[in-house]
């Protein structure tokens, strides 16, 4: 059956697949354009801050989704990679004067290496045990940095004040550069996910998630697949952490490595649609502005209330639509199948 013509239903399915990929790219271009214009319409500094964070968490959650959503390895310890990126960049910059652009890459590579070393051990564990192990290891990492004097221990690292410059990626008041970088990072993670979805890795990772035994019988190397997903995921998470350090210009262990960050990376994907291309960004656009407004209204007294709010949100989604919000859109097209 070398290359005979396909039957009509299959030709239609194949064409529909190509059409869907094209439409997704167009939708993505429109989304990027909208985000590029948005800060020119919304000049309020506080609102622009929210835009930066929304885009950053969209990128982080997209990175988390590569391992958690596509490959099915639920990590609740991604704060470790976020912190690795933030600390690598901050230490290289403040101790050695290495510009953050380079620090970001170094942080990403270190995080990917850590993910491979940890994965070598942890990918023997299945399901909940894997998730629990990631929490424990991230907490251990937090404690280590807390006691690491050279890296500022619990006091953290203050970035020196310097004039606005693209070279050091430091801007005192101007939020626009940060918005565009966060947008670029989100675009990169989205495009990587898009490419993965269309490549053999995407098929392999989803197969590993759905049924590892069946995947193995079809020639898929489970361990290698998980390792690759973990490395890609950790790399982009660390670049996000490096960006965050540039953005806030002061980091300490709790502000970049706390368990809360691991949750905040997983939640948008879970809310929007785990293992989907659009889930993380949809989730982040809903969750992050909501989180920022609740925590600012409640101020210092309401610490943790924001977590309760999105805990509730996730429960509602889990009960009403476990596939996430984006499944509302795909459901409408389903009946033709």
């Amino acid at each position, binding site marked *: *059956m070398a290359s*005979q013509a*396909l*039957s009509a*239903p*299959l*030709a239609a*399915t*194949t064409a*529909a*697949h190509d059409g869907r990929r094209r439409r997704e790219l167009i939708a993505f271009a429109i989304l990027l354009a909208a985000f590029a214009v948005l800060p020119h319409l919304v000049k309020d500094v506080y609102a622009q801050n929210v835009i930066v964070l929304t885009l950053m968490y969209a990128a982080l959650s997209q990175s988390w989704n590569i391992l958690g959503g596509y490959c099915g390895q639920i990590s609740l310890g991604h704060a470790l990679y976020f912190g690795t990126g933030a600390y690598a960049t901050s230490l290289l910059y403040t101790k050695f004067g290495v510009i953050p652009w380079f620090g970001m890459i170094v942080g990403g590579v270190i995080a990917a290496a850590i993910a491979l070393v940890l994965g070598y051990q942890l990918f023997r564990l299945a399901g909940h045990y894997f998730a629990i192990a990631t929490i424990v290891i991230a907490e251990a990492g937090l404690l280590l940095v807390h006691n690491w004097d050279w890296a500022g221990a619990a006091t953290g690292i203050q970035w020196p004040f310097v004039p606005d410059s693209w070279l050091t990626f430091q801007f005192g008041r101007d939020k626009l550069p940060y918005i565009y970088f966060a947008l670029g990072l989100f675009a990169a993670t989205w495009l990587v996910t898009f490419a993965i979805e*269309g*490549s*053999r890795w*995407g*098929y*392999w990772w*989803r*197969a590993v*998630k*759905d*049924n590892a*035994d*069946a*995947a*193995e*019988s*079809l*020639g*898929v*190397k*489970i361990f290698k697949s998980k390792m690759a997903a973990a490395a890609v995921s950790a790399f982009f998470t660390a670049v996000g952490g490096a960006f965050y350090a540039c953005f806030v210009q002061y980091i300490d262990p709790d502000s970049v490595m706390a368990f809360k960050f691991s949750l905040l990376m997983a939640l948008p994907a879970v809310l929007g649609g785990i*293992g989907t291309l659009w889930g993380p960004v949809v989730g982040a656009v809903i969750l992050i502005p909501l989180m920022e407004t609740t925590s600012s209204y409640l101020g210092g007294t309401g610490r943790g209330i924001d977590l309760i709010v999105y805990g509730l949100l996730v429960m509602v989604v889990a009960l009403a639509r476990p596939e996430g919000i984006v499944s509302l859109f795909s459901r409408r097209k389903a009946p033709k*199948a």
Partner: protein
Amino acid sequence: MNAPLLQVDDVSRRFGGLAAVSNVSFEVGRGEIVGLIGPNGAGKSTLFNLIAGALPPSSGRILFEGEDVTALAAPDRCRRGIGRTFQVVKSFDSMSVLDNVVVGALVRHPHAAAARRKAAEVLDFAGLAPRAASPAGDLTPPEKRRLEVARALATEPKLLLLDEVMTGLTPAEAQKGVELVRKVRETGVTVLMVEHVMEIVMPLVDRAFVLHLGRELAHGKPADVAADPGVISAYLGDRRRAS
């Protein structure tokens, strides 16, 4: 190339104190359809897993095309040309039917576009074309069995291991299944099938190998095996008395 396609050489597998498969040896030649039969608990599925590489044997060797593949894991055996289905269907339920088959096709076609093309051809061959776009989780049980076969065929196996693909099907569905197996053989694929439903296996296979309590009970032409007194008492006896 004179070696048989598959040689199972004195293979045993123990689970703790239980010997699921004991000193089993047999061969499958190129182009054959061989039936592996036996009552429940005979060790058929264990033997299958040993051949597919899902389990390592406690002792003995598995040879494929004359080469020792005992140490190879399941993905590598798939690469060598051993495809399999599962007794309890294991579809990728979050993926479409076509995407399920693409996973299998990727072994020989690293580029996703080529794999999609191959998968589409296999779905046409397996008669699942109208369901290509459906989520695999929405398929009916007989369709899921068909998908298992299609997915394994997409890896372009030389030897296809079918684990009770007819179980739970109505006679009409099973007849379609038999036609599919015959069609598979016509494309040059050798088939080793575990089957429970004797009425279906016996007319389909060239040879039958009977396993009972983990040991070989009989092997040979289906008619001879069916007439073997040991087989009748161990397996067919109950059925004959019942009908």
